[in-house]
């Protein structure tokens, strides 16, 4: 088994902030927009370095998305920042028409996704944003797993021409991927090789999947762990290749099991090679207030839940 080390827990949103700061220096077309959450989104540094390229839009997310779309006309590359709920559900039709259908080069960057937003509770804990964004034709949907990967993704999406949804989170989580990695949109990353079960995870669940794989390993079971940072376009090939070996799969995401990564994988399997699958995800419920760790546990979003799902799905082969 490969060993992964947590080089020091950090929040993924700070990876975004660091990436944006770097982009500010290297790409003069990058502009940033924020809807009264500059600190939460870690956009302060960009704002300080480039006040002329930072746009505070106030609490008006719809206008922010429309403005971002308009700024692409004239060659700007707008990065919008707010919480995941207000980045997607609040502005779905605006993204749909002004960004996705118009195919504008807007990067919708969303923090505080999922239940790990914590104490603010359900109104802020969106568990549907991956589904929302994946249904839009032409949209690229990314959910990164740690600080380093989030920073790399932030840099990568500036180079890519087209609408992107980049999802990251609030709490400090293990930082374990390489520091100066290149991020390849749409290319799954194999973290562990194994024959017994495929674990496809995204976002905060990737580290949990690695822990789960260790636990399984102790029980003599080899899990193949795939970091599926890009949910759309989905790396079907990586998934199908893996299940051709393992013949069963667990998907793990901080999202409703309806409409998200899990169902995308089910569809790919049903179209190609029907395979038993278990879902580590919220089961169609709203979140609630609590600490991130409490909520991950209560809603079955941790290594333990992944182990359980893996054992169950292996038994179903």
């Amino acid at each position, binding site marked *: 088994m490969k060993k992964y080390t947590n080089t020091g827990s950090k929040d993924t949103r700070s990876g975004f902030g660091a990436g944006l700061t770097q982009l500010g220096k290297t790409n003069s077309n990058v502009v940033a927009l*924020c809807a*009264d*959450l*500059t*600190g*939460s989104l870690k956009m302060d540094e960009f704002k300080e370095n480039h006040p002329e390229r930072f746009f*505070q*839009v*106030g*609490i*008006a997310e*719809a*206008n922010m998305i429309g403005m971002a779309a308009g700024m692409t006309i004239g060659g700007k590359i707008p990065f919008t920042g707010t919480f995941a*709920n*207000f980045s997607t559900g*609040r502005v779905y039709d605006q993204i749909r028409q002004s960004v996705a259908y118009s195919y504008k080069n807007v990067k919708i960057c969303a923090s505080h996704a999922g239940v790990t937003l*914590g*104490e*603010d*509770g*359900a*109104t*802020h804990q969106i568990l549907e944003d991956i589904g929302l964004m994946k249904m839009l034709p032409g949209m690229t949907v990314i959910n990164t797993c740690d600080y380093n990967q989030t920073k790399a993704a932030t840099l990568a999406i500036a180079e890519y021409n087209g609408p992107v949804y980049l999802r990251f989170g609030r709490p400090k989580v293990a930082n374990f991927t390489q520091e100066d990695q290149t991020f390849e949109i749409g290319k799954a990353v194999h973290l562990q090789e194994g024959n017994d079960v495929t674990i496809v995870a995204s976002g905060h669940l990737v580290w949990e999947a690695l822990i789960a794989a260790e636990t399984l390993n102790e029980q003599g079971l080899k899990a193949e762990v795939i970091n599926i940072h890009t949910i759309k376009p989905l790396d079907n090939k990586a998934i199908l290749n893996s299940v051709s070996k393992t013949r069963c799969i667990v998907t793990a995401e901080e999202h409703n099991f309806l409409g998200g990564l899990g169902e995308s994988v089910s569809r790919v399997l049903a179209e190609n090679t029907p395979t038993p699958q278990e879902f580590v995800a919220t089961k169609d419920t*709203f979140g*609630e*207030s*609590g*600490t991130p760790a*409490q*909520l991950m546990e*209560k809603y079955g979003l941790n290594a333990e839940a992944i182990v359980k799902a893996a054992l169950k799905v292996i038994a179903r082969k």
Partner: protein
Amino acid sequence: MVNNCSRIGFVSLVEYVTFGAEKPNIRMSDLQNLEALVTQVRRDILRQVHKVNSGHPGGSLGCAEFFVALYQELMDRNEDFSMDGKNEDIFFLSNGHISPVFYSVLARSGYFPVDELNTFRLLNSRLQGHPTTHEGLPGVRIASGSLGQGISAAIGAALSKKLNNDSHLVYTLCGDGELQEGQNWEAIMYAAGNKIDNLVVTIDLNGQQIDGSTDNVLPMGNIKGKFQAFGWDVLEIEKGNDLDAVITGLKNAKSRTGNGKPICILLNTVMGNGVDFMMHTHAWHGKAPNDEQLKVALSQNPITLGDY
């Protein structure tokens, strides 16, 4: 029915604290007691957010007088806390993040045990970070938290009242930063165009939002002029942290209902009011005091009806 004419008599401080949820619709009987309640509410706010190191003290503190005045002096509320929305005044908190002040005043008015304030933002609590009906907390009519939705809901409830021939009023509170959300202006246009005159919308004009002052974040210009241009009857409460002034202003607003126009109150408050280091700044919009800070803050609000 508890209303301003036939209110429950004086409740001693001891009783007040003891009775908790068993006591129907607690009303304080004089201004001095209400002033004490305001300080108690501030203490409740501070202690709630301190305990879980999260939540929104700034806006909450600024609105303590408003909530006390509204629930203790203004609203006609059903004595049995029935939540069907009929035959009583009802209130919507649009800026749901100031839940600490809402919870405190609901509890202190008898909607649920004061003790339950201890569970604020904890797992499995009815006192969610933002108010919700989802966990069944009495006194909450609808979930809020995602900003900009409260006035619409209030209009709906006001229309229901008209359909039900229920002459009671609907009150709402909104943040000033919150007014940047477009949905508010849809609702503001609708309410005037359709003469929703059993509705009193109060704007917490504290001049602050998360990233700074409203002037720095998104200059909002003349808010009074905007509401007037949208056809509302607007009145201002200059001293939004003077309990007497707030009561007078609210009564004035109430007296102006039923005249074909929705009523807007511009309530000038100080964010973080009552705690010197929290005042006049956005810094405490969503930040909890540490142990030391809490001590100082409470010492600045010594009068108490008894902490939970």
